[in-house]
């Protein structure tokens, strides 16, 4: 069970982690600035197992892999959006963070709601109701199962 943090459409990678923080040597030093321009409390409030739920085109903009990496480092269990920008989507899979497409979830949950996600069956439980979400393509599920691209290539 985790809490929902909601974000609007077209959230870009500069909003997830601004470029002035990309020179920090580690993701742990960057992560406290996650979503700083949109919600300066996010990094201190989010707990491991929580979820980011967004409208269309989440993660558009730059190719910075630091964007999904800071979310993963903060313990975000998955990002569920109506759609994703393609580089963010690939990067997330490669670092082993689930990104799930759901056309309906954004419109039925609100900030702070409790929800659960079962990746294998593609089911979301929120506010006592069940919703289905898109399962990953086989190639991506395989990379994710192995813990990301590094683990996958090392196999």
């Amino acid at each position, binding site marked *: 069970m985790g809490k929902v943090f909601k974000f609007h459409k077209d959230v870009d990678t500069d*909003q997830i982690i601004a*470029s002035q923080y990309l*020179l920090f040597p580690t993701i742990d030093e960057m992560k406290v600035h996650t979503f700083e321009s949109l919600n300066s409390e996010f990094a201190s409030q989010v707990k491991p197992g929580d979820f980011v739920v967004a409208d269309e085109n989440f993660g558009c903009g730059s190719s910075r892999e630091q964007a999904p990496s800071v979310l993963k480092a903060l313990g975000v269990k998955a990002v569920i959006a109506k759609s994703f920008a393609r580089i963010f989507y690939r990067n997330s899979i490669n670092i082993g963070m689930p990104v799930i497409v759901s056309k309906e979830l954004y419109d039925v949950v609100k900030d702070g709601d409790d929800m659960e996600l079962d990746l294998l069956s593609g089911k979301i439980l929120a506010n006592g109701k069940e919703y289905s979400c898109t399962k990953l393509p086989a190639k991506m599920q395989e990379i994710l199962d192995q813990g990301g*691209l590094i683990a996958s290539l090392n196999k």
Partner: protein
Amino acid sequence: MGYTLVEKIIAKKVGHEVKPGDIVTVPVDWCMIDDIMVPFAVQKFEEMGFDKVYDPEKVVLIYDHFLPATQTDDSRHFRVGDEFAEKYGLKHVHRTDGICHQLMTEAGYVKPGDIAFGTDSHTVTYGCVGAFSTGIGYTEMAGILGTGQLWIKVPETIKIEIDGTLPGNVTSKDIILRIIGDLTASGATYNSLEFTGSTVDAMSVASRMTISNMSVEAGAKCGLFAPDDKTCDYCKIPYDDEIKDLHGDDNASYAKILRYRAEDFVPVCACPSLVDNIKPVSELKGTKVDQVFLGSCTNGRLEDLRTAATILKGKHIAPYVKMIVTPASRKIYRAALADGTLEILSDAGAIITTPGCGLCCGRGGGILSDGEVVVATNNRNFLGRMGTSKVQIYLASPATAAATAIAGEITEA
């Protein structure tokens, strides 16, 4: 049934026919790594346990975002890059020559039909010469450095046909901004954009670069132009039958076709703080500006600087406006110096900076503060990109930028 341009490029590389949705593993002709991502890519490469780079001739390191360094930690990125290049025998390192996306074609690397990946989303720029190129993260880049290949999904194609003659004050920047507005910031996600028509045929390679560069702002995976004689001149290769075959077939299957008349375009801006929030410049008249930025991999080329110089010649920018001009490469800087363009811009009151990314990524001189307004020729007006999150960024063409600098308010050229 024929093929779209992206299908032809990929099919040639993998040696068999492909169709949209196919997942194929492609050989990689060029890897571009920029200074921001160098330490991360190197770290992942080492974690993956590779002991050599698949082909040191095919990897290009380019320092551009952090140049000249403005923070004490920036030079660490250069040091890590230099050590990596030395250790693995990399042949191509550009330490002060300009912006990565300008150099990848200008310095003679990417050619028509090539496949290239880079650690920056504007890697789509090389579509201007008919190459398939797109941005990836640093972990995937590390994987390519070791294996020389990457899996991709063959994209569907949206064809964009533009015919006719553009009005005098309209540039290719106005075209791509309008198209992004029509498609929206996610309207081309996962798709290839293919630009054709008599307007496109008449464009310089530099103007096409502006369009390819911003394809990603509509979510596109690549933004392609069929190579022609101008492309081959620019790339210094013969215009032979193999190159002539690199175009979308008339009977190819397109996800969508958008048709435009060149005469219908007007100068436009992308208004704060979304790339698809497009309005005609004429509707923004009276918006006071504090700063104008002319530069970036979108619009920092010689023709862009010359366009601005033609408008600024013998005039002076408004007293309260700071105008920053950042050529995209050393070669452009030197050409603009030699032909008097920089002198005109400087006489008009502009600040000329060293070649590189400059203000576009919010790193170089010219950072703005709450309530300030900037008209900029780069590709993104995201919240907080050029200073605080209360800075208003309007994206525009070099012509609009120059006219705006003189008037001190957003103005049509």
